[in-house]
């Protein structure tokens, strides 16, 4: 680090706010937040020994071991981890949209062994053409809602899941919001909401102003206009008069 402080040539001055591509090795070693529970090289090696080819890759960042496994062997590996190595608690599960051409989606599994105080992250990768993953509900009952959430957010279907409904969004919604191509402001008309006044129709766009249209005038203003027509004439030319 000290040599970086004194550049040999002015042009090589490091601009630290530029995105760095390679992981910073010195930061890796001195990370003050490394936990002993995530340092599980013996688990990774026993996985490699037992499953061989099915373990595609393993890497370490911030003292955390991540094992990339083949999708077809995921259930076997999890069952082995649960029954033989004591990883009996599924802490978390979720999807990742990498937005790449190949193997676009990832699912990570955060497994915990309560007795041995260990934590391990498994990952599988899924291509866009074949959006299916094996369900873990047979191994961990608690995977149920997490898998539903992953299906809701990314549209990854979990084969064999007992109840694959959306978790947060209603069934009437037809998009998968955590995919990278889904716009942050949502899609107008995709999710009808209850009417804002008793007589009005469904609200097709909850954020009309964000999409460039004027919001519906409130119920009270409609009433006052009906009661006093001369006042509404005075306001002609203002917003909302197109209703009359």
């Amino acid at each position, binding site marked *: 680090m000290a040599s970086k402080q004194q550049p040999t040539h002015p042009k090589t001055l490091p601009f*630290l*706010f*530029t*995105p*760095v*591509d*390679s*992981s*910073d090795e010195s*930061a*890796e070693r001195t*990370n*003050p*937040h490394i*936990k*002993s*529970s*995530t340092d599980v090289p013996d688990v990774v090696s026993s996985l490699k020994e037992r499953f061989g080819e099915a373990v595609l890759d393993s890497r370490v*960042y*911030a003292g*955390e071991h*991540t094992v990339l496994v083949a999708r077809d062997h995921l259930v076997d590996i999890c069952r082995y981890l649960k029954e033989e190595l004591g990883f*009996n*608690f*599924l*802490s*978390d599960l979720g999807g*990742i*949209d990498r937005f790449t051409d190949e193997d676009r989606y990832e699912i*990570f599994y*955060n497994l*915990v062994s*309560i007795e041995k*105080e260990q*934590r391990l*992250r498994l990952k599988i990768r899924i291509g866009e053409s074949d959006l299916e993953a094996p369900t873990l509900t047979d191994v961990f*009952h*608690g*995977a*149920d*809602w997490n898998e539903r959430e992953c299906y809701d*957010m990314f549209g990854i279907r979990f084969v064999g899941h*007992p*109840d694959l*409904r*959306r*978790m*947060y969004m*209603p*069934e*009437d919604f037809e998009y998968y*919001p*955590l995919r990278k191509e*889904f716009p*942050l402001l949502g899609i107008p008309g995709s999710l*009808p*909401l*209850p*009417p804002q006044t008793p007589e009005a129709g*469904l609200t097709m766009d909850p954020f009309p102003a964000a999409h460039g249209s004027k919001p519906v005038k409130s119920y009270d203003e409609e009433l006052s206009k009906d009661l006093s027509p001369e006042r509404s004439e005075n306001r002609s030319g203002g917003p909302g008069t197109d209703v009359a």
Partner: protein
Amino acid sequence: MSIIEQLDFSKTLSYWPRHNEAIYRRLESKHAWLEERHHPDDDEAVDPLDNEMILNIGPQHPATHGVIRCVVKLDGETIKKCVLDIGYLHRGLEKLAESKTYQEFMPYTDRMDYLSPYSNNVAWCLAVEKLAAIEVPERAQWIRMIMSELARISSHLLWMGVSLMDAGAVSVFLWTFQFREDLYNIFDEVTGARLTVSHSRIGGLVTDLGEKGIEMIEDFIERFPVAVGEWEKLLNRNRIWIDRVDGVGVLTAEEAVELGMTGANLRGSGVGHDIRRFEPYLKYDEVDFTIPIRTEGDALARYFVRMEEMKEAIIIIRQCLDRLPEGEIRSDDAKRSYPGKDEVYYSMEGLIHDFMVTDTGVCPPNGAEAYHAIEAPKGELGFFLQSDGTGRPCRVRINSPSFSNLQGLESMLEGGMMGDMVVMIATVDPVLGEADK
């Protein structure tokens, strides 16, 4: 003919017909967790008064602690099956985080578990600090611990007041809210806001804990244990309260682990899993405290665990105040955390750094990913972050304890009595702001 065939959802409901139909279909087709587990042998006996009823409870219901909808199938007063419908408070925090810098996301974490916003701030900061390998000064870590424990007390106080109110004892609600008011005053003094504190910064804190703040905290930890003792005198042997919660919503240790329960719900079932011990963060490995565990696994056990946790929190705060060192409250690395206001106002470099930290912030290396969890009042609150080398996260995954606990609640409700439903929801202590993200 089942009830679904009789109802034509597209005609009865003007919006979300498919959603409601799916819930009812699930209720029909579901095999209840308890049905599989504790199936009685003599279910052939037919009750002449037997009738089935489907009841919608929520999303707007005072006893549901937020916008949670329970669709239950009743057999008399017994809940045969239950389907929980959540998402009414879904704001898409994970999606929003992808367009914010790491620091900008902090105010959103206040609004997750709004009963203990400080814990959420700390959890977020620790996750980012782990991802970017940022060291936090000693003093900041101790202050974070003090405030997180105060947040734990605040959250448990609300839980206690509300669950006792659900069980019929309104006066406890008023007593706990006196102390919650004191806690809010402390937060106001220390952080400048009562509810949405946003006090942590990446690499430290925004303001130091002053003399007055310490005085208020010391005053609080003097008075609070006395009050807890009085409440325990009233409640621990109170026939009405014990009869109401004893044996209600039982989860065995195996069931709790399998369902993925966290926090006091897991420890009430006899599993001693606490992140403060499991993977100590901040200075939890340097203070002396015990983790209360009960083995019964019912609502009463969860009550005892939370009462003990409040007392343990006071013990932790005492030790923190004794050992609070002098020093910086924010990392001195201007490329990674905010410079002090003096620097910003009086030096060009300080201003530039302030601008750059606000505009871009920390940039963890491309492909870096890290998970950091803390023991929030509700359980394991963790953030899984993935970086693409820019100042904004590529993916943020919130592992929220209320979400895990609600999943267990669905199974817990099945087989229970309708009248106990409110008690079960209360003792699981869900916060929908967090569960719905």
